[in-house]
């Protein structure tokens, strides 16, 4: 168990800056999930922490010691790779024992630890197999086993479930969470999958083009997204965004069609006419006679819920999520309850919270 502190971590590959100053602090035993679109620098961040790449600048403090310039072997960190990276020429047992042998553990100790890990992961009957004789899920478990036998200070997971089929992914997701809690090892978990992001972590870091945008609990990220990027990235289907301007001394929003709606949670700072983006989640859109016209283009039934995608009279595309099968009509009347508004600056995209008096 260890704490991890990352300070102003930057990385450039030649002239291309990939990470623009990441700051993090993990409590001992905490699991932090890093989420972001493909190519935003998640793997790069993990590789810097692991020591596989050298940072351009910044500090990585593991358990009070700056490890940023240390060889990976001196950091006591284990990583689960996206493609598992098992040693193809070694048996499952040897895959797990390799790191322990290098650490010079006695044979009986190695055997005990490997067997313990194998029991936890249900790998006992597979110990003599080679990786190529295993299914995807089993390989994934071996990769996990190789990480846990080491009893490292820190676990790193780089999209470990992305190569599994959907059912297995759900199952392994729960298993990883259980295992991490049980072992209490501080962990960084990288994913682009928002379900994993929401369910796995104690806290969530949203990374956007190498810039950390929001670090908070998953519910807070969902409930109070820091900007339009986070708002659009977390939640499925994505949040609807409507252009508007500030009106009535900051107490309301004026939409493109001229309607004015009062904010439910208070006044916003700024001059009237200031450009806003009003976000509203698809599940918060309501059907209401006398509302705006909504022309349905596409119906996506998901079983317990249905997503309707269509256009407002202004031509703007929005999606609406309803419980059950949903209405069959091609034209509906919808309204946007002010209580569900997320208010963002129309230019910078940053969240605007109500003024506290």
């Amino acid at each position, binding site marked *: 168990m260890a704490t991890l502190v990352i300070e102003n971590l930057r990385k450039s590959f030649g002239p291309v800056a990939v990470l623009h100053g990441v700051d993090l602090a993990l409590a001992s035993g905490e699991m932090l999930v890093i989420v972001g679109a493909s190519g935003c620098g998640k793997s790069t961040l993990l590789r810097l922490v692991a020591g596989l790449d050298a940072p351009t600048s910044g500090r990585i403090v593991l358990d009070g010691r700056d490890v940023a310039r240390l060889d990976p072997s001196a950091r006591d960190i284990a990583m689960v*790779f996206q493609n598992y990276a098992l*040693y193809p020429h070694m048996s499952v047992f040897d895959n797990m024992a*390799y790191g322990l042998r290098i*650490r010079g553990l006695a044979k009986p100790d190695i055997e005990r630890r490997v067997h313990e890990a194998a029991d936890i992961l249900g790998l006992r009957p597979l110990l003599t197999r080679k990786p190529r004789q295993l299914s995807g899920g089993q390989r994934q478990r071996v990769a996990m086993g190789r990480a846990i036998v080491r009893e490292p200070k820190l676990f790193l997971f780089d999209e470990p479930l992305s190569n599994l089929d959907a059912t297995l992914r759900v199952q392994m997701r729960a298993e990883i969470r259980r295992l991490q809690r049980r072992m209490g090892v501080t962990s960084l978990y990288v994913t682009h999958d928002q379900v994993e992001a929401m369910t796995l972590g104690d806290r969530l870091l949203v990374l956007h083009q190498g810039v950390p945008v929001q670090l908070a609990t998953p519910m807070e990220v969902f409930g109070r997204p820091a900007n339009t990027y986070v708002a659009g990235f977390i939640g499925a289907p994505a949040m609807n965004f409507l252009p508007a301007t500030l009106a009535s001394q900051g107490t309301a929003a004026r939409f493109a069609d001229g309607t004015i709606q009062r904010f439910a949670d208070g006044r916003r700072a700024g001059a009237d006419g200031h450009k806003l983006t009003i976000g509203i989640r698809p599940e918060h859109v309501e059907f209401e006679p006398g509302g705006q016209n909504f022309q349905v283009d596409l119906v996506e039934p998901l079983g317990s819920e249905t997503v309707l995608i269509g256009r407002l009279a202004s031509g703007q595309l929005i999606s609406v999520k309803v419980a059950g099968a949903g209405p069959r009509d091609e034209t509906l009347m919808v309204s946007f309850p002010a209580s569900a508004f997320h208010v963002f600056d129309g230019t910078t995209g940053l969240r605007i919270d109500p003024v506290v008096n």
Partner: protein
Amino acid sequence: MERRTIFPGWGLPVLLVMPQLALTAVFFLWPAGQAIWSSMTRADPFGIRTTFVGLENFADLFSDPLYLDSAGRTVVFCAAVSAISLLLALALATAADREIRGRALYRFMLIWPYAVAPAISAVLWILLLHPQIGLVGHWLNRIGIVWDYKLNGTQAMLMVILASAWKQISYNFIFLLAGLQSIPKSIVEAARLDGAKGFFRFRTIILPLLMPTVFFLVIVNLVYAAFETFPTVLALTQGGPGKATETLVVKVYRDGVINLDVGSSSAQSVVLMAAVIVLTAVQFRFLGKRGGE
């Protein structure tokens, strides 16, 4: 997924395969057949009449101490050439696999020797090792090491081994580099995180994964050393001094072309041909099995 084109009838397939079959027939089957035939004949001293003698030439061969000497010499020569050129190529390929500045130039320079004709490479080595005019040879004599490959058989052997190994390094380098690059980076990185360093990591992770390539190259190198070094040896030492560098191919040439003992020479080439067939069969079986796993 298997992609297969089905040709209707026989005409077109036969036409397409014809050039290859014709080449094989003219340059392999025909001379090989002739060799097998003449290995079972013996010419009279004047070369006027040949008589069929069955396997007598082979029996003579295997009871001839000169032939057995040459065979032993060839084994040493092949082993040394293969070992030296593989080890050096492995070291160079490992270095080239790293992220280094000027990597492209470095690789290009290493691939170059492959394009040098054997006779020219022999001249290079003579200019290096000649006891009087060679850079290294002259220097060796100056500092008190008696060096003359034209008188000392061991030194001559050393020289042909070096020259032959050098020419094969490029080939090995290309294959080993490709082999190294086909090892997934993440496997090596996993080993780094597991704490494996330097030579230990190379021995326990990289080398085992490179083994199929190495095995393939061992066979190719043995065949190269046994056969394709002929022009190099001929240009450097002509098999001498005495018979110090006379490998089996050189002996085939000397007995057949110079001494005109066609029967024995043919028998020798048939033995060599059998050796190549065995080596190739071993290679196919081994690599074929691995591929099917």
